[in-house]
């Protein structure tokens, strides 16, 4: 789970990246709980997240790619 991330598009239009903690919940349970209600999300590998944050606030995501679920 430490190698996974959950991404969704927040209300500001930015890409939000959820970093799961080792709390006893599965990545799916964390996604369902911590992704805002109604927001579509996708679970990706940590390697898929850019490490260069110079333009962090300019990151975008295609909503059509957020296919793993919707925040509960």
């Amino acid at each position, binding site marked *: 789970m430490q190698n996974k991330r959950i991404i969704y598009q927040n209300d500001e239009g930015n890409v*939000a*990246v*959820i*970093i799961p903690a*080792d*709390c006893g919940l599965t990545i799916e349970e964390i996604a369902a*709980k911590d992704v805002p209600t109604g927001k579509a999300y996708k679970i990706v590998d940590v390697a898929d*997240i850019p490490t260069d944050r110079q333009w962090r606030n300019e990151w975008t995501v295609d909503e059509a790619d957020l296919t793993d679920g919707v925040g509960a």
Partner: protein
Amino acid sequence: MPYNSIHTGEDIDAGISKTQGVASNATANATDAQLRDRGTHTGTQPLSSISDAGSAATASTEDFATAAQGSLADTAQQPPTEGAFVDGDKTKLDNIEASADVTDTANVTSAGALMDSEVTNLAQVKSFDSSDYAPAAHTQAISTVTGLQGALDGKLVSGSNISLLTNDSGFTTNTALSAIATNNAGSSEPNPTFAHMLWFDTNNDLMKVRNEANSAWVIVAKKDGSGWTPYRQGTALGTASVQPDNRYAHRSNNLSDLGSATTARANLGLASANSPEKLRVVEEVNNSMVAQFINSAGSSGDTLGKGYIGFGISNSFEETGCYIGWDQESVSGYQQALTFGTRPDIEEFPTERMRITSGGDVQITKSLSVKGATLDPGGTAPMHACRAWVNFNGTGTVAIRGGGNVSSVTDNGVGDYTVNFTTAMQDANYAMSGSGEDTGGVKDVLIGRTNGGTKTTTACRIKTVNAGANVEDFPSVEVMFFR
């Protein structure tokens, strides 16, 4: 002598004389050497007439016994001294396998026999007699056993079943079973007697049991009308004169008190009327059973009192090492605390260590250790623990280093994060505190809530601001939440 030679008269006479001596048909044209040579002889000559013929034949290595034998006569096998072979001997020899050895163990074993060396009790085997063994299975008629038939006939009643077996004394099985069923009830003791045998003495209405040594009867109960009075060590229980005089035994004056619906109790204490009871085991109150433990002061009534159950190596309460007790918290009602104590020194009275109050609070007088971690606060000010915390790296690949009650951290953008709680707070009125350092190692930074950002029972949004009042990703962000 040549004919044309000149001879004298004497020669002629001599010749004539010789001629007259020659036999008719004699061979006259051979020399003496030729005539004497055995190779020119014809016919046969007995061997016996030839001197030294035997040694000549033996010495010759070319003389054969017979041509057909093909072996030298000099080396031919001579008949043994015990006599020559006879017909049939060769057949016997032909039936013996090549290199046969009659002492070979394998051959002997194959033939089903044993070598002497294989038998450990050789002497016994050789001296064994057929009368020494009995057949493996056999039958023997009863009639052939002296006295057996008669003995059996005396035990069985003709036409009856086995329950009527009778011993030599005429004691039948039916009699024995009947005695067992009635605990040998009778006016006289059973005969014979056995250890632990029961006997109901109908003369005295006493139930007795035979002692271990089978030497005497011990009374265990007395039939009293339709009931029974038990005995202990030969004396009836329930009689005032036999009550024990120590604090640990039953003191009730009447056993019937134990079964009473309203007064059931069994007190243990000193026999002396002036000494307070140490332990009242049970008392029925409002259909519930209550155990009361009274201390040496005998507290009761409307005064506050304490009671203890002591545990330790001594049978004296004052010397026990620890205790579970009760403490009356109010003179009215039944507000009583459960207390636990230990005895730090044998000379000291046990000290209270933990208390569960009548209101349900758990109070510990010393430090608290949970899974080896000790909580040891000083003073008496109440403590309110941290309900959630997290330490994470906000730069590069954002990652959580550690935390508690935090399920995840949401990276919303530069210096902008949301901490999500695993278990929700009771409300959103919690306090948040944070610290960290920026990318330059400066710790004079601000970690606070985002203006207008989320602060709910399940999550709190924070921002990391550097010393220049600019939002920045911090390599170390530490936040705590208290409620």
